[in-house]
């Protein structure tokens, strides 16, 4: 049984249709990449999968781990094992990064989180992401640079260990070193966490050091092509022109 099954998913924002009949299947532990030009609806797909109430589902269904989740609220999807890394993470003053993660872990598992083990894990994950330890006690995303915000998102993914992580443009706006660091974090998630990934991106930099199983091309709200990692090479060389013309 596939981990994620999306059938004929259509979605609209403020009455404007964006996604038009998306079919997508992701197996446990596999890595999918969703690429496409600006405005194709990539982020909308990420938000629709995670259940952002601003995105109205106008057709189709989403199944996760065999359960129908199309109507579930985002927190229930998170508890079921979904994770979305935001392109623009929200600032939450007064809540420290570590407390936020620890609380989230507690709520997702329903179990008390042992402080010692938690701190040890945080420390090693932050080391992997070259994050200064002081960030753990800083208010969530408040005053973080663009790069630190993205790292904090990957840190949450590593700590919360979802079954499926959707990364929305996690490489955008990052310099070369930061992309490499984030990419390391994602690789650790592939290898240690055995979670599945849906990496949404319009560039290919973050993918260089990652194993990719399947690539989807999204144009004007439709998946116009699905293939293996070789598609990445083609886009690197020729861009999206072939797909946009066909669409």
């Amino acid at each position, binding site marked *: 049984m596939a981990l994620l099954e999306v059938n004929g998913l259509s979605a609209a924002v403020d009455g404007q249709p964006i996604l038009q009949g998306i079919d997508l299947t992701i197996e446990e532990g596999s890595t999918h990449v969703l690429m496409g030009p600006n405005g194709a609806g990539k982020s909308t797909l990420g938000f629709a999968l*995670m*259940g*952002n*109430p*601003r995105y109205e589902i106008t057709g189709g269904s989403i199944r996760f781990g065999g359960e129908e989740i199309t109507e579930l*609220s*985002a*927190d229930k*999807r*998170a*508890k079921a094992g979904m*994770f*979305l890394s*935001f392109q623009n*993470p*929200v600032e*939450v*003053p*007064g*809540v420290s990064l570590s407390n*936020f993660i620890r*609380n*989230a872990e507690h*709520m*997702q598992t329903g179990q008390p989180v042992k402080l010692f083990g938690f701190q040890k894990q945080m420390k090693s994950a932050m080391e992997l992401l070259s994050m200064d330890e002081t960030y753990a006690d800083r*208010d969530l995303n408040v005053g973080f640079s663009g790069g630190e915000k993205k790292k904090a998102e990957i840190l*949450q993914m590593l700590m*919360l260990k979802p079954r499926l992580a959707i990364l929305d443009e996690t490489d955008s706006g990052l310099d070369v070193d930061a992309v490499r660091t984030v990419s390391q974090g994602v690789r650790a998630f592939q290898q240690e966490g055995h979670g599945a990934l849906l990496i949404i991106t319009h560039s290919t930099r973050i993918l260089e050091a990652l194993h990719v199983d399947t690539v989807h091309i999204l144009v004007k709200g439709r998946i116009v092509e699905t293939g293996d990692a070789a598609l990445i090479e083609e886009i690197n060389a020729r861009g999206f022109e072939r797909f946009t013309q066909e669409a």
Partner: protein
Amino acid sequence: MSAVEQMKSVPVNRLPMPTYRFLKVNEAELPLPEGAVTCKDPLAGIDLPEGLRVTAGTFAGMEEALREIPTGMGEEADRIFAQAGCPASVLSVQAGVQAAEPVILPVTATVGVSSLAAVTVRAEEDAALEIVIDLTCDAAGCAAARSFFGMSLRILAGDRARVKLVVIRRFGAPMSDLIDLGIRCGEDAAVEYSALSLGVRGGSKAGAGSFQGVLATLAGDRSSFIDHTGYYAGGHGLLDMNIIADHRGRDTRSDMIFRGVLDDHAKKIWRGTLDFKSGAAGSAGNEQEDTLMLSPGVHNSSVPLILCGEEDVDGRHGATIGQLSDEILFYMSSRGYTAEEARRLIVQARLKSVAREIPDAKLRWEVEQWIEREIA
């Protein structure tokens, strides 16, 4: 009996420049304590770190230098303390002394009794002090009708002195109270003020509530004032504030952040003023207000003034008033928080971010526990 004592209320928290009357924000009516008034002296019999001393005195006989520090609530508030014959001891920090540890003054309001307390702080040149005033009710709580509590505070910061004052107001039940603060800064003096107003629940009685005023006179060149206020008001509570940064010296700075939560039928009036006097060249002031409204019955009034008689200044104000944003709620729910949990975490976080300013670990922990227990 004086005229004031015969009156039921006095006008306080005057807006420095009045505006349309229909808004009813030009001043507040402070209900006066009825019956006998008890005075407390928070500085009596406390242990002090080296270099600090307490001089006993009375409010009415307060020495000139201190009396000339205006407060946010205005002269009418002073009159209440003077007429009750309250003591006003002065806590002095000698020149050059950096107090080794914070001075913590617990003040307990007594049930069914009107009580007043006044503390004045004089930090001499190059001195540094941290002081915490912890306002609570006695064991039975302060639910009794007609409980009234007043606190008058003055800080005189000499040249290059640094004073940090934290006031924690955690009354668990409805009562009327006033917290009135006046600050005067010499050259290069820096005063930091953190106020945590918890448990403003108020009764149904009109006019009851918490009245708070702050006036920082930045007289010395390069002096600065930071105000970091957090509050929670619920029930039928009324929170009435008047905060003024009076920039007089050159290159003075003020930075004021107000973050609050209004619930149930609570009403809040916030007056915040940046006043740049002619001659305050090179000065900058900033006031930011962020109000979270949790219930359809709340009433929020915000009156942010920038008064300016000097060209070479930078004055800014920003306000955000509304509910928790959909973005924050969705972000938190994508990490597994339900709407209810997200709301509680954020409300408590606003208050804890001010509690963080408490320089004493034990008290800080106690206050954080209080927030988690009382504000859900």
